[in-house]
């Protein structure tokens, strides 16, 4: 599959910080997919997206978008991209239709073409009824949908979305995710988020970064199958057993534990495991009483926690 975004050994160092925000980041995004870009807060997601959109300079490395090397302040490649920033503010004194017409005209459309485009994208985003309302009167979900609509209006090859649902209530979040899902065939969507449920719901591929480095990149199904046989959910009789188990696990490098509820843990093994008997026996021999256990399929959250926990 053709790669539409390629980052090679990308380094970004902020003047005021000792550690680089991006540390030799390598990334390849296949064309025509929804690509989830995951990482904990401060991992370098927003820095990456700002470099990819030409809003930020980088110290070294190469960024290629649709076969074109990206340098800051080049404007031509921006005809190929759309962008909605984290908590993106637009010109709130404009109406929805005015904003979309203004955006379309920036992309070189005539007045009549811009009007048609604006009406089309208002309809796609479900905002036709609010077309003549001032943006400041829009709800959070409406603003995000308008933000995506303005990012789509130049028919971009790549749509960059930085935390598109993080500031929304559940209804707004659903509206935006549904909208993203409906436009999946029109362009490549690069979505930066830390909401794993959103990624599982709409993304085809994910990349996980931490401390500015790529940790894992694959299709969601491959990532989950890679870790699925290595997850055991185990619960204990009481708090004493939990304390014993935590103490027992401290010196063990075979697995990592992810606390699930009060008395149960999700255990992800670092090696291929087909038989858990040996592991369970060793716990029982250590005097820890098990209440129940089950082999589970790893969720993206399990993988994320495992890969990003230090």
């Amino acid at each position: 599959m053709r790669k539409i975004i390629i980052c090679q050994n990308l380094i970004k160092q902020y003047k005021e910080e000792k550690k680089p925000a991006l540390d030799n980041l390598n990334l390849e995004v296949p064309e025509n997919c929804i690509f989830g870009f995951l990482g904990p807060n401060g991992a370098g997601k927003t820095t990456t997206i700002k470099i990819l959109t030409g809003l930020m300079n980088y110290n070294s490395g190469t960024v290629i978008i649709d076969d074109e090397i990206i340098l800051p302040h080049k404007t031509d490649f921006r005809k190929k991209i759309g962008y909605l920033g984290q908590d993106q503010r637009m010109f709130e004194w404009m109406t929805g239709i005015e904003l979309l017409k203004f955006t379309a005209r920036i992309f070189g459309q005539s007045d009549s073409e811009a009007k048609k485009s604006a009406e089309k994208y208002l309809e796609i985003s479900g905002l036709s009824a609010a077309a003549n309302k001032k943006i400041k009167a829009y709800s959070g979900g409406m603003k995000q949908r308008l933000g995506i609509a303005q990012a789509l209006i130049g028919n971009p090859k790549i749509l960059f979305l930085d935390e598109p649902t993080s500031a929304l209530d559940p209804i707004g979040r659903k509206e935006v995710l549904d909208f993203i899902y409906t436009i999946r065939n029109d362009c490549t969507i690069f979505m930066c988020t830390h909401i794993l449920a959103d990624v599982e719901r709409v993304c085809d591929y994910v990349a996980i970064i931490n401390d500015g480095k790529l940790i894992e990149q694959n299709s969601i199904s491959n990532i989950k199958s890679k870790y699925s046989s290595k997850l055991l959910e185990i619960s204990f009789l009481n708090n004493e057993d939990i304390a014993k188990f935590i103490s027992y696990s401290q010196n063990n490098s075979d697995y990592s534990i992810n606390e699930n509820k009060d008395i149960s843990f999700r255990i992800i093994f670092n090696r291929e495991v087909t038989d858990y008997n040996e592991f369970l026996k060793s716990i029982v021999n250590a005097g820890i009483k098990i209440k129940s256990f089950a082999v589970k399929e790893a969720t993206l959250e399990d993988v994320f926690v495992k890969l990003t926990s230090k």
Partner: protein
Amino acid sequence: MDIKIYFLLLQKEIRELILTQKGIAFIAIFAFFSAVSPISAFFMPEIMKSISETQNLQIILPEPTWLDSIQQYIKNITQICTFIAIIIFMGFITKEKETGTLVFLFVKPVKRFLYILSKYTAITIFVNLSAIVNTVVVYALTYYLFGKIDFIAFIKMSFFIWVYLIIIMYSVVFFSSLCKSQIISGVFSFGFYMLFSLAGGFLSSSEYLPMGVLEQATVALQNGSINLWPLLSSLVLILSFVVLSILFINKWEAK
């Protein structure tokens, strides 16, 4: 294509200044203080007389002339009006940096220098509109109240006041392009304004510098011989503001 985007951005700036009422407030405040100038000059002797009567004092003021009206106008424009104008426009670009609307534009195929040029053009349009309104208001009221006014001297003086306003407002746009926050931009703009207003008094070379334009406004009013050096240095300063703004905005990175 570039010229179309420039006009599109300019149109956006003008609409924004009208719809957010900043541009309207700018013109209205200048017009108000322009109108107050001849009126206060005309009624000042009577005001002083009534004050002196209540205080048992005797203050004798000479009969006011049209020159007093214009001097009052210069004072109002270069003090209170400039002060308010700086407050109105100190976030002209910094606010767009703070709220993220600058990112909205710069992630699109918009060349940054066009954005800066549209900002300076928009401010020039509003300064020009304001200057026209002020000139008409002051001329009409002065003529009505004082019965005469030297039209040529008044127009020459208005030109120097226009240059002064352009310098101050361009400095506000410049600092707004340079700074990250509105407050810092405002502090720098006030600093420049204070320096510009006071430097004439202690700089021996001020007759060559942009701050000389205010002195030339008074010279023009009295039909004196005009020194062009302040105009030339003002032109250099104005162009420097624009060029430096473009350089700074080209280096700006979204955080």
